[in-house]
Structure formats: C-alpha cells, structure tokens
C-alpha cells in the first residue's frame, strides 16, 4: 500500500508503525512520529496500524543551539 511519509509517497507492505520503522532500518533513539498531525506516543507504535494514504511524519533529534 501507499502511505505518505515525510511528504513523499512511500510504498509499504502494511502493518504497524513499529513495522515501518523496522522496514526503514533506523535507529529508534531520539525519534518522534506524528500521523495526520497528531503525535503518536512511543507506547502506541506497536499497536498503531497504518492505512492507505496515512500521512506519517518521522522526526529525529539533531545537533542544534
């Protein structure tokens, strides 16, 4: 299915947010996720299912002043 990930169309086999992160192979430390402009707490990543056209934004911590 197709989701929108960080403003780009992204092909994903389906599943939860946790599955998406595993698929992206990203370090999970310092990450936050929002779906349709709502922040999804880390405790819900395992149970939050993604749907066709879900608008997902993943943010990461970086250096800054």
């Amino acid at each position, binding site marked *: 299915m197709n989701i929108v990930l*960080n403003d780009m169309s992204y092909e994903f086999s389906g599943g939860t947010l946790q599955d998406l992160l595993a698929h992206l192979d*990203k370090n999970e430390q*310092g990450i936050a996720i929002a779906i349709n402009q709502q922040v999804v707490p880390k405790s819900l990543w395992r149970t939050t299912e993604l749907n066709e056209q879900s608008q997902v934004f993943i943010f990461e911590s970086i*250096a*800054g002043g």
Partner: protein
Amino acid sequence: MSSLFIAGHEFHSRLFTGTGKYASADAMMDSLIASESELVTLSLRRMDLKNQTDNILQPLQQQGIKLLPNTSGARTAKEAVFAAELAREALQTNWVKLEIHPDPRYLMPDGMETLLAAEDLIKKGFVVMPYVHADPVLCKRLEEVGCQCVMPLGSPIGSNMGLASRPFLEIIIEQSTIPVIVDAGIGAPSDASLAMEIGADAVLVNTAMAVAKEPAKMSKAFRLAVEAGRMAYESGLGERRVQAHATSPLTDFLGALS
C-alpha cells in the same frame, strides 16, 4: 559558586551549551565535557530517510547531561507547541526551549507567539524556557503565565556581538523572580563573565565554542569565565565612581622632602 535551580532541578554549572555547528560529534563531546555543562540543547528535524544521522544522543546520555530540545524552525505558536510535543516523545523530557523566529535573516524571536505558546505548553505540563528579546515587559508576562525561567538574547543568534542588550538585561534581572539565562550572541568569555557579573543566573553559549579553532579549549575558557563572573557577582562588586578614591592612605610622610 551557588547552585542554580530550575523547576526543582539543581545545576552546579551555570553554563548551558548548544550542540550545533561542531565539525564532528567527537569535537562536540570533547567541548561539552570541557565546558562541564549540565544542560545542552538539541533540535528536531524531519528524518533523513536516505542517510543515517550521527548518533549524538548516546554519548550525551552516557555523560549524564540533561537534554533540552528546542522548537527551532517553528514560526507560530501552533507549530512550536507541536514541535514541543514531538520533542517530548523523542527525548522523553518535558523540558523545552521555546523559540519562535519567523524571520530567517535576523532570527528575532516573535514575542506574541512565544507568550501564546508558553501559556499552552505550561497547561500541558511542560517546563518552558522561552528564548525572547531582552524585553522586560514580555519577560514579566512570561513569568506570570508560569515559565520557569526566561532566556533573553544578548544579540542576534550566532552574531558573536555580545551583550548589545545590556541595559534591558539589567532591568529584566532586577525585576525577575525566576532565573534569567542570557542566550544568543555571547561571542567571547568576557561577554559571559559580564552577563554573570550583572546578575544573570546562567548563560547559554553555542556558536562561540563550536566555531573556535580549538573548541574544547574555548569551552574551558567559557567555563572559567562564567565561574569568575558568578563569583564576582556573589561576592559583591564595588561601586563605580567618577573620581579617584585612594587605595593607599594619603599621608604626608614625604612632606619632609619639600
């Protein structure tokens, strides 16, 4: 040097630092360790899906340094509140450096949006550290809505122009019942010392350390300057006078020669 308390958290160091602009993660860590800073700022951005970013969190956490996410990039109160909520999840902290600067050229903080965001974030349980202009009225308003400190600027971010706002910082410090942290523009250890001497509770320094030829050495210089300035403030600086006031007794023991 006395400890600083913000929202019940004790800081032994009055030098807060940023993590931006360093040439490498190693240079940043060496510099932060030399600074002995106990609070460092971080930013959030949309994840780079193609490249793995340097993991700077782990070394910071190993060092036991408290993390302070900022809302840099936010142009409105609404965006800043969203950024703070994301940061709370990302870094598992309810502390936030609230900064809203819609203008990329001078990065001047938007006071009205900052006050709106601060009110909202405090209701949501955040410890809010707002970056603002050196505006005594705004700083008082932020205190009234429940901010745990204020962070007025010395001069524009990254400008190294020092305490251009000094007269207004002095009014803020005089009026404030919450800690005042001078943020932005501190370009030299002498600027940091001066901020502490006039009674600031802490300073936040990033650019001046990160872009130094030897960041770790510069960070140590800032640490010493902050300690010196604070100790001078605590011990009570002498009054300024226009006329001389002799330090040696003016006796006429040489009078016999004339």
